[in-house]
């Protein structure tokens, strides 16, 4: 592969037949990702896709990069090892609502908290696709599925609210079919140093078809989606509506925008660094409110692997790397001739570095 030739989207496709159901939303995300890779000028050899198990987690097989299809829920943990071992790699985590938030919720929490520099793409189809349609932790209450024939009773998890609570510092949302916006969001996620969490609403045509149609279907899209841009007013419905901050109730509310005069309507300008706004945005519920999409929150902080690496280097500074000397450390003595140990020994300085008992 010639480093000089810019790669096209197709160069990021593998020779493997794609094994999703025809019409699955995963195809669109794959396309969006391949395009993004090309547009970013990503280097395939430096890119690693790590996934768990689920329909979505088949993703790495279709990306002509390095890829690791691991086990259910554990992609964040494997990715942590990959990135700590080689911080130069671009690590993308592909997961589903079951993989990432059911069995894998804990690793997700700690990945976000630690702020490992990587991108997490959570394909949320509100269902377990691969195991044939059981409800998932993001399924709406009342979801009928093979495991909940009378409807689920538990309240769903909200992935972005969870990510914020876990101290995630980059939170974004997108829709499988939003090919226009997707590359921009993925590039932002990639550019963000630290853990970037992107929730992708993905249609499972077989087990949960059109579950997002109430806000993704063409006719309703404009009125029910708000695409956020840092520094831009929060407008939707083709600019005829906006969100205003109700400072007493501490919530966002819909206002009409007449003739594009959003200032007059007191429409809020999106500041992606404000966590309180982010809380409000992710908690907005359709149909009362539009669904917040785009980069909802971005407030960078030092990343885990960088701080680890820095500490490792600092700790090593000035120390002699001598294996022979290392094993000779501690309390040593010399036996000079066969048969009898020499009583006169010397005590090494670092005597009890490792003694663990707290009290003398």
């Amino acid at each position, binding site marked *: 592969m010639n480093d000089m030739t810019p790669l096209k989207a197709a160069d990021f496709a593998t020779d493997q037949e794609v094994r999703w159901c025809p019409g699955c939303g995963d195809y669109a995300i794959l396309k969006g990702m391949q395009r993004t890779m090309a547009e970013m000028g990503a280097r395939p050899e430096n890119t690693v896709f790590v996934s768990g198990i689920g329909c979505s987690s088949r993703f790495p097989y279709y990306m002509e990069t390095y890829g690791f299809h691991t086990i259910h829920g554990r992609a964040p943990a494997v990715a942590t090892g990959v990135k700590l071992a080689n911080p130069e790699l671009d690590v993308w985590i592909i997961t589903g609502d079951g993989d990432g938030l059911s069995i894998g919720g804990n690793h997700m929490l700690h990945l976000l908290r630690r702020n490992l520099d990587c991108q997490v793409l959570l394909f949320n189809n509100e269902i377990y696709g691969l195991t044939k349609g059981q409800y998932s932790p993001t399924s709406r209450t009342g979801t009928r599925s093979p495991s909940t024939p009378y409807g689920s009773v538990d309240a769903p998890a909200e992935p972005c609210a969870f990510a914020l609570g876990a101290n995630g510092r980059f939170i974004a949302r997108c829709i499988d079919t939003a090919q226009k916006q997707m590359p921009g969001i993925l590039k932002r996620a990639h550019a963000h140093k630290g853990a970037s969490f992107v929730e992708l609403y993905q249609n499972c045509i077989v087990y949960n078809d059109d579950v997002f149609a109430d806000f993704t279907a063409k006719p309703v899209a404009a009125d029910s989606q708000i695409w956020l841009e840092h520094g831009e007013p929060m407008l939707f419905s083709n600019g005829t509506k906006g969100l205003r901050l109700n400072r007493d109730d501490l919530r966002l509310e819909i206002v009409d925008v007449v003739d594009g005069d959003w200032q007059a309507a007191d429409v809020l300008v999106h500041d992606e660094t404000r966590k309180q706004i982010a809380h409000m945005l992710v908690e907005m519920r359709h149909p009362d409110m539009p669904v917040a999409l785009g980069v909802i929150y971005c407030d960078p902080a030092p990343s885990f692997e960088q701080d680890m690496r820095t500490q490792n280097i600092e700790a090593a500074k000035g120390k002699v790397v001598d294996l022979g000397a290392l094993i000779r450390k501690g309390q040593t003595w010399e036996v000079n001739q066969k048969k009898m140990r020499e009583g006169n020994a010397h005590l090494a300085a670092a005597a009890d570095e490792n003694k*663990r008992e707290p009290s003398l």
Partner: protein
Amino acid sequence: MATQLKDQPAAASEREAVTVRFAGDSGDGMQLTGGQFTLSTALAGSDLATFPDFPAEIRAPQGTLFGVSAFQINFGSDAIETAGDAPDILVAMNPAALKSNLDALKPGGLIIADTGEFGARNLKKANYDENPLENDSLKDYQLVAFDISALTLESVKEFGLGNKEALRSKNMWTLGLVLWMFDRDRQPILDWLHSKFVKAPELAAANAAALNAGHAYGETAEIQQGLGRYHVGAAEVEPGLYRTVTGGESLSLGLVAGASLVNLPLFFGSYPITPASPLLHTLARLKEFGVTTFQAEDEIAAICAAIGASYAGQLGVTSSSGPGIALKGEAMGLAIITELPLIIVNSQRGGPSTGLPTKTEQSDLYQALYGRNGDAPMPVLATRSPVDCFEVAIEACRIATQYMTPVMILTDGYIANAAEPWHVPDIEDFQPAPVTHYEGEPVSPYKRDEKLARVWIKPGTPGLMHRIGGIEKNFETGNIDYAPANHQKMTDTRQQKVMNVADSIPDQAFEIGGPDDDMVVVGWGSTFGPIHQAVKAARRGGAKVAHVHIRHLWPMPKNLGPLLKGFDKILVPEMNTGQLKTVLRDQFLVDAKPLNKVSGQPFKIAEIKAAITEMLP
């Protein structure tokens, strides 16, 4: 060895071996006392073995039975391989320590007790109705009881410490007395005290004063009947540099050395658990050796991160104890099917479930060999002693990288915490086996060498992008493949690859004895010492019995089957309900008889010797 000590103390006497047990409250610093006495013993040239035995509680309430912490040391002029069956001397710092350790004491053994702690409250906490120092109950032992607490307070008076703080030096006072009994040099301990308390010189001085006072007490005070002096000779040893080392230290050093020999940075992913944590703690301080330590959110994350690091080209290691290893089973399967190098260390403890976290056991062998879904073969190695950990770790690094396979190391809480003298090896004596990550023409990621190990291509290498994962892969291409014949072939290949490890390991040797003996005792792991001593003793008694101790539990040395088939009588002592026994019977169809002990305590030499005698009357 200790069991040969027939004559009971009267005056200063020559001993071949002596076992001393220091027992006190968790707060009394018994582990430290034992550690320093161990050092002193090593410096005096005796061979030795130790057994730290501490409670599960961090700091159990003072004076309670479950708060007793003990440290046993066996030392002598002959080779010492166990911490001693029964102590000759018991130092009991309070009633609870006496109560819970008296059973172990040899009949007629010496008790040194601190009367200052035998007040009504402490007696009650230890469930004593009467003061055992004052009634007849200890008449079968020699008792030397005096007010160590008061004597200590007296000795450190001048430093103006609070009562509580002053009493903390009791253990040094006692150590001073014991040093006197064995005619030991105090200087190394004094040096150590000064380096330890470099930031609190008054504490150093107080402890030194207590140590000296205890020593002087032995030297000058009116000694009660029974408190004599002993001389234990120096042991025959190879010349060279020695140090004491615990299993935890030795294993850590071995992993660092092993990674260096295969020329890879070491990635250590772990989650704390008793008794495995010392590895994490030790390695966390060795960053300059290219070691990255990662305290994960749980055991599953720890092994998965290690797998990720191996995938990225480092040597991934993870470590835990039984319950945590149970959680790693699924991920081990991933490492097996993706054929990535990985080392899993299990510092075994008493089970099942949470079990007895601070007690020792060998009951995770089944789990190591069989505890995964699917046909999931993996090499398994066992350490036999603190010193042995070093070599075993190096061997694991070699196998993992040469065969592209996870490898499990079984050690245990006893080995992890016990210390023994280590003839420090020359690192140059170990054969380097540097790994080269593949960087050539595009190949299938499942291309294999003659050993059947697949190529190791690390992300970041241009032109070699590929995908791996937990689904069955095509033998040729590495793409997903569910075809029947392919699965059979891959299953056979994974199996054969692991069996091929046997081509690279030494034949099983006899520790003592040989093929002409009438019986063989087969062990693994930390039962080495008691088995070895028991077999030696039995041979001295004329029994034709040999000892075989297995390091390579899977695959086993190729000659092991023929070797064992040569014996009609095979005894397998294990600190479990008979797990190696299962493997030997399955593999070699030999009538291996189990000798099991599952009490959280190491075997006594006598127990094994009795079993030998029974089989070989």
